[in-house]
């Protein structure tokens, strides 16, 4: 098998890529994705780390160590791993509450993320933000936002600052198919196009916003065309294939870096778990979920691709599996051992003291 793994779960997944204005019918090969062996194996490691992290988070939630809302990214790993592979150090990232994978892909420490999930003092927000609200100035990760749609103007503002400062950076602004219907998203598209801001709008189309399928929430579901009226180029991408994601990301980021303004990527993907931990997910069939897991899983697909094309052998991948398991177990232990924040923290950080 020479082709990279292709998502085949649903008709939409099978139909990709249907990007506009260019031929992309040729199967993705290692060459055309221009990722070298180390990088591809690295993608495997990164996606696996996110998956194991999320499974562990789900487990800790079940034990009462994580509470409140906790939204897992399982199934969508290829999107953020493939896209962040195209980012530079000065680029910025912003996303929604479904943010654990994004933080790991930005190079944030699994221990610090997990400790925030348990609400402890070694967490990225010192326990004050929780699952939905984490940030890292060092990694240019700007959150972690709980209000659907609100992060999109914020990302547009990060791009405004990149342009204003002339730092060459691009903002990667991730949000969901459901968020795409919020008015402020449309407002942001207009401003970004009007002022040629370097922002990649990434719509992670996982087919549902909570219990509502895209067809029940959106009059048109060609999300990649949502910027058309503003002249924003868009691509629909198979978000279950990390190599296709990366290739699309390269195109988008080149557009932004050369001053041509925003770019829109619709990543067709799927979330395996419920919307949050307390979602019984009765709005879709078990068969729908298991079919996608079996046929289009981004990690299984890449694993097969790596083995088939001889980029690594089974023993090497098993060793990666082991290392990832150790890394995540350590993060979970760290997150349980870290103490709760000091009580005096209650009143700190409300305002910057002057």
């Amino acid at each position, binding site marked *: 098998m020479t082709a990279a793994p292709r998502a085949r779960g649903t008709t939409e997944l099978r139909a990709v890529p249907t990007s506009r204005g260019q031929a992309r019918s040729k199967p993705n090969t290692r060459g055309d994705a221009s990722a070298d062996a180390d990088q591809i194996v690295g993608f495997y490691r990164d996606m696996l780390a996110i998956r194991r992290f999320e*499974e*562990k988070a*789900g*487990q800790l*939630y*079940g*034990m*009462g*160590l994580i*509470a*409140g*809302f906790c939204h897992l990214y*399982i199934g969508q790993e290829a999107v953020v791993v493939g896209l962040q592979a195209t980012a530079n150090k000065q680029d910025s990232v912003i996303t929604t509450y479904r943010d654990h994978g994004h933080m790991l892909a930005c190079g944030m420490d699994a221990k610090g993320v997990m400790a*925030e999930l*348990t*609400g*402890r003092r070694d967490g990225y*927000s010192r*326990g*004050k*933000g*929780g*699952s*939905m*609200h984490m940030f890292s100035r060092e990694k240019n990760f700007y959150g972690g*936002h*709980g*209000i*659907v*749609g609100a992060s999109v103007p914020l990302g547009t503002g990060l791009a405004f600052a990149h342009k204003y400062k002339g730092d060459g950076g691009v903002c990667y602004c991730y949000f969901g198919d*459901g*968020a795409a*219907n*919020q*008015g402020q998203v449309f407002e942001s598209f207009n401003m970004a196009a009007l002022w040629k801001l370097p922002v990649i709008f990434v719509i992670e189309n996982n087919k549902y*916003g*909570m*219990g*509502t399928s895209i067809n*029940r*929430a*959106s009059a048109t579901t060609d999300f990649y065309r949502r910027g058309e009226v503003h002249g924003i180029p868009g691509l629909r991408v198979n978000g279950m294939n990390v190599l296709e994601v990366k290739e699309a990301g390269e195109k988008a980021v080149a557009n932004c870096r050369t001053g041509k303004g925003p770019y829109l990527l619709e990543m067709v993907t799927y979330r*395996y778990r*419920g919307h949050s*931990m*307390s979602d*019984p997910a*009765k*709005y879709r069939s*078990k068969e729908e979920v298991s079919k996608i*897991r079996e046929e289009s899983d981004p990690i299984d697909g890449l694993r097969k691709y790596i083995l088939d094309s001889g980029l690594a052998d089974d023993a090497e991948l098993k060793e990666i599996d082991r290392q990832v398991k150790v890394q995540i177990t350590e993060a979970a232990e760290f997150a*349980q051992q870290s103490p*709760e*924040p000091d*009580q005096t*923290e*209650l*009143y700190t950080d*409300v305002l910057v003291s002057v």
Partner: protein
Amino acid sequence: MPIPVLMPALSPTMTEGKLANWLKKEGDRVRSGDALAEIETDKATMEVEAVDAGVLSKILVPSGTDGVAVNTPIALILGEDEDSDAQAKAPAEPAAAKPAPVAAKASEPAAAAPAKTNGGPAPATGTVITVREALRDAIAEEMRRDENVFLMGEEVGEYQGAYKISQGLLQEFGAKRVVDTPITEQGFAGLCVGAAFAGLRPIVEFMTFNFAMQAIDQIINSAAKTHYMAGGQLTCPIVFRGPNGPAARVAAQHSQDFASWYAHCPGLKVVAPYSAADAKGLLKAAIRDPNPIIFLEHEILYGQTFDAPEGPDFLLPIGKAKIERTGKDVTLVAYSRMVHLSLQAAEVLAKEGIEAEVINLRSLRPLDVPTIVESVKKTNRIVAVEECWPVAGIGSEIAAQMMEHAFDYLDAPVGRVSQADVPLPYAANLERLSIPQVENIVAAAKSVLYR
């Protein structure tokens, strides 16, 4: 060593559940992510997924077991690299998992016994129902009564409500009257205001009031002001409802009491029920009212049971408070979930010989000042309890009203208990410090008694 599978917590407020059904049997090989069993909670049936791969070696809690506490071991999984011999040697009782840190779930014992009513007809024939059911019944009864009433919001239809308030309504009334929306709060709130101008009677469900902030311009500028701006020509009979205030551990953007925001605005009525009877009688009154109503519910109260009157004619007047408990030493004024805590505080105070009177405000605009003043004339001391922030909160308004209307009767300055003046933190210990607790109310009551 086999790995114990523990009874999971499936929602921020779950403490126990029913192990409805095993989906795997002993000896089955499981992969991480496989569904092992179905668990029933008061809200839903959910699946427990395997976290570790291996063989399901032993089921410890059989199908159909009720009341399984969170964190109880329910099965054992033998890890992939272990031989099944080890299984035989495995201890029967798996090592208990580490206990969870400071309980995340606020314990909410059954509500205090209802006291005599003064804010409406006393429940005649009652049944015991949850606040959730009371709200659902109120909506259903009013929709049966008036075909111009409809419900719109996110997940109200096919999902049966994010918090299961609208359970069964889509089935009874159909998609014309139970309308699922995209996530576009400003859009559908504005749309419903327009529909109300045209004579319909929308009930707008906000998944939580935190998201109504997206729509607050339409609520204030369009719904609240139009009747006045139109010189009385247009009316806006609409109810904006949903859970308000902090739930459990959902952090700053999802935990806010908006009572004082809306109570500030002329042209609105603002209602905040506590019990199931409040929920039912006030929601029905709100739906029939010709004005825009903000109806503030509380997620933590949804599952609590109370006596509530039956029948489609039970209404409570908007603007009247209810004395939940009589006392002569100090008045505690509260609304929504804080009524529950105030009643608990009154119990504690009673043990120390202090008789607290507890007033359930029910309505924040209009505020039932006469009832509060009457109480203060008797007790001469008052504490206002709320989940809003202290600055310009409901307690501030009550303090001002007491200055104006009960100054001569006060033996101490008005006391206030509120959410700490910070965005709500996630960490369990900080969250507890920031949300009002029974002991804060007790302390405030003693403080106005100089004890």
